[in-house]
């Protein structure tokens, strides 16, 4: 009886090069890291500035200070009232919303991909060897906390409603009646993109109908799911654009509030 030859132990190809990719794979993570860093630095400075966040005449409130719940907020800027008389300078006026906005964005499935690639290089690009000796993914603290995304989404819905109210207030002219200024349109554009980002969230898609096995038994939920799925397919675009409009609307209101220029009025 013939004996089968022993099968040699197999191992991976011995290739020491980190990657053979020739395209500029390092560009995308660098751009992402740069843009996110700029945004975080800008937002950090702005939320702790403590002034130039509200234009009383035009009723413009920057999203970084909404809701302004400290007793130190300027008159007219506290749409939800003032919850405590004062806060130490290390606490932003809109701390109640900022915690959830930050939580929503940092646990977002798109941003996770972006910062894992850009900052943690895990991996920096596909088929490029990552520099870490060990990897546990999102199985341990603190990254297991990414599973809280759904709860930040619920808070983001409420914040979206508040920002919509703020944008609507921006359509009140100096006399309190309906009016349109460039700032009104800036705030409106911002809130549209914020909703595009929020409703395109993967958690929103899951809650709406993604969790179901039978779409046919829930036609309205299925219809909503198709709409949110359309947004979800553009989640990255909405994530970046809404980040940009948040910054630009804050910058615009800061410049108007500081007196750098007056808001050009289109109507009233």
């Amino acid at each position, binding site marked *: 009886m013939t004996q089968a030859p022993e099968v040699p132990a197999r*191992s991976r190809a011995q290739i020491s090069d980190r990657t053979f990719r020739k395209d500029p794979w390092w560009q995308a993570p660098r751009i992402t890291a740069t843009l996110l860093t700029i945004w975080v630095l800008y937002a950090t400075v702005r939320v702790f500035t403590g002034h130039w966040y509200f234009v009383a005449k035009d009723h413009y409130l920057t999203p970084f200070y909404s809701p302004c719940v400290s007793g130190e907020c300027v008159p007219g800027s506290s749409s939800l009232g003032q919850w405590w008389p004062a806060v130490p300078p290390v606490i932003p006026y809109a701390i109640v919303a900022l915690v959830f906005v930050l939580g929503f964005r940092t646990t977002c499935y798109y941003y996770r991909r972006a910062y894992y690639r850009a900052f943690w290089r895990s991996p920096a690009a596909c*088929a490029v060897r990552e520099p870490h000796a060990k990897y546990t993914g999102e199985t341990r603290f603190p990254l297991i906390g990414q599973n809280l995304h759904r709860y930040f989404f619920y808070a983001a819905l409420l914040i979206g409603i508040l920002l919509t109210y703020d944008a609507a207030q921006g359509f009140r002219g100096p006399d309190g009646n309906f009016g349109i200024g460039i700032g009104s349109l800036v705030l409106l554009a911002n809130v549209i993109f914020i909703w595009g980002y929020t409703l395109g969230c993967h958690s929103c898609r899951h809650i709406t109908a993604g969790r179901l096995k039978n779409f046919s038994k829930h036609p309205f939920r299925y219809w909503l799911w198709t709409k949110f799925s359309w947004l979800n397919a553009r989640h990255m675009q909405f994530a970046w654009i809404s980040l940009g409009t948040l910054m630009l609307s804050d910058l615009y209101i800061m410049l108007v509030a500081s007196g750098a220029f007056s808001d050009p009025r289109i109507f009233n």
Partner: protein
Amino acid sequence: MGYKAALRVWRGDAGAGELADYQVEVNEGEVVLDVLHRLQATQASDLAIRWNCKAGKCGSCSMEINGRPRLACMTRMSVFSPEETLTITPMRTFPVIRDLVTDVSFNYAKAREIPSFTPDPSVKPGEFRMQQIDVNRPQEFRKCIECFLCQNTCHVIRDHTENEQAFAGPRFLMRVAELEMHPADTADRREIAQDDFGLGLCNITKCCSDVCPEHIKITDNALIPMKERVVGRKYDPLVWLGDKITRRAHKDTPKVPGKK
């Protein structure tokens, strides 16, 4: 218009190997697999390549071309400049049998661990009824040709062999998602998706979707929806509280025992 392309092809077996340089004629309209076949026919008759359909449907000719996981039969030579040297290597995640041929049996072992389709036993053959909108989602995943490029590119096992036991890989987490979304399936694979198939190791960097030759949105349509389902099963404090109050026990389907 033909030209001579410079190729660096990894030659070797499990023991050792190196990149060998070749100059191979290229004709208009050819794909990388055609050029490899010409190399085999004219200069390296012992070059090992796995291939079958030459139409992007069998998933056999998976390899790495200039560092990117691709099907050789679907990679046109026209996407490279004639002056460019092509580096062609086997898939890095799997053991090499010889040259560009790898042993992908890891994937078959993972496939066997997944509890199969589990219909309601009270539904008799011929009684299944489902609408197209209910099966659209699982059908997207059925486009998979099992080329294992997604498994190869996933850094969880590509860069960390220690995770091979704990992680099923995107292709098989997608299989779990496919069954979970099936309207006639009754098993609950959410817990094993996390605990036994390593869904928590996935950090959704989307490389699996990027390399899929069938353009299946693996991350957005399978892995993330599966993560959301797992949140509902394991990390939702309201569900946890409800379970405690009502003393509700989940009927989690176990992994197929004895399979590795």
